[in-house]
């Protein structure tokens, strides 16, 4: 079976990419195929990249405070395109916003201090889930 494929992206006007790079590298070291799109991406660019690369999981990092705005647009676009790719969000997310993001369909939110091990495990579980669902379809 081929490696699980993850898109790592920075949504919105936000150049703080150390976190995203550390996570991308950790996923590579854990045996994932990681596609890193870099900073200042629009939700449209993230969705299109996910389609063209046929990824198993989308991970977005946001440290700008605009997570509610960008993520709701991202989730809407994914629904419109009929894309069943699990989304995880990481960054400086105030705790009260976590349930709101999950309500939008985000599968997991990683707050500052999250361990790489935890991130890797969640991403792997979500990727497994998606492949299994696809096989049954």
């Amino acid at each position, binding site marked *: 079976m*081929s490696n699980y494929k993850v898109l790592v992206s920075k949504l919105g006007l936000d150049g703080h990419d150390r976190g995203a790079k550390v996570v991308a590298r950790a996923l590579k070291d854990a045996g994932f*195929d*990681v*596609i*890193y*799109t*870099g900073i200042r991406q629009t939700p449209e660019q993230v969705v299109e990249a996910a389609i*063209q*690369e046929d990824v198993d999981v989308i991970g977005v990092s946001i440290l700008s405070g605009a997570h509610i705005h960008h993520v709701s647009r991202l989730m809407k676009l994914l629904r419109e395109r009929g894309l069943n790719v699990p989304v995880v969000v990481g960054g400086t997310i105030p705790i009260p916003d976590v349930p709101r993001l999950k309500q939008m369909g985000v599968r997991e939110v990683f707050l500052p201090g999250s361990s790489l091990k935890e991130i890797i495990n969640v991403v792997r579980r979500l990727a497994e889930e998606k492949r299994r669902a696809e096989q049954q379809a």
Partner: protein
Amino acid sequence: MQSSKPREAYLNSLIERAVGGDRAALGKLLTVLERPSRDSGIVLRTLVKKSGRAHVVGVTGIPGSGKSTLISKLISVYRSWGLRVGVLAVDPTSPLSRGALMADRLRMQRHATDPNVFIRSIASKGFRGGLSLAALAMIEALDAAGYDKIIVETVGVGQAEVDIMHAAHTIVVVTMPGAGDDIQALKAGVMEIGDIYVVNKSDKPEADQLLEFINFALETGEIGSGEKWRPLVVKTSAIMGTGVEELAKVIEKHLEHLVRTGRFEEKVESRRLMLARLFALRIVEEKVEKIIEAHKREVSRILGESDDPYTVLEALIEKGLREL
């Protein structure tokens, strides 16, 4: 295991949708082609009936020479000419973790939402020949889906990547100031295979010196594939956007040359032969691996204990193949 009828119907509908412009279907189709299997064989059977039109441009050169940025600018030129562009960007798989961090796409993301551009990253990993097999199969898919230019980006190291380059109609070798002297330019390898050489980052000092080294290498040897195409050298600065339109025009010149000399179709033929060959080799390799796995102990002793290891191994494999 034979591909079941419903599976075949699914694959056929995937091809139909992908060729009809459904990008999600094309993304899925490329995933099917990532590894050789009955499925990918069935898909290729249909694809090759629809492909053979696209101009495949290989872009190769050392890491950091600016290939991805250059390709992004080249896409802009092609789009201004009204052409549709597919990109296959190869990045290395870690020999340690077997994972990959692919970031060629990062330089091209401005084109992500253009419905006439399709970019796919490929990890170089897996089994021997796996990379070339995946890339060659994906070329057929993008070609069948109506992309006019298919740009294949690799770092051009190792046999697999050289195989991919041989499948390209036009090979563009990208180099940059500081990458070596005139002796480097004379060495065997990547500096022999180009139809076009690009001195990128020409906004930096020493670009003209590199240009001279390359011209020296081209003038002193019979470089090229014996097709009477004299390799051309172009200076670019991808980041500033200079020289890119000229590069695009030089690539067109090479395309005209290929069409005029009948080499265009020949290259499509040889690309498919290579694809079928790699497919066949993979089938054999899988079987041989199974046989060796089943006779591990015996095989590990052959070198030390047999008088004629070659013949013993050959007999073991032939016997195993009959029994499989």
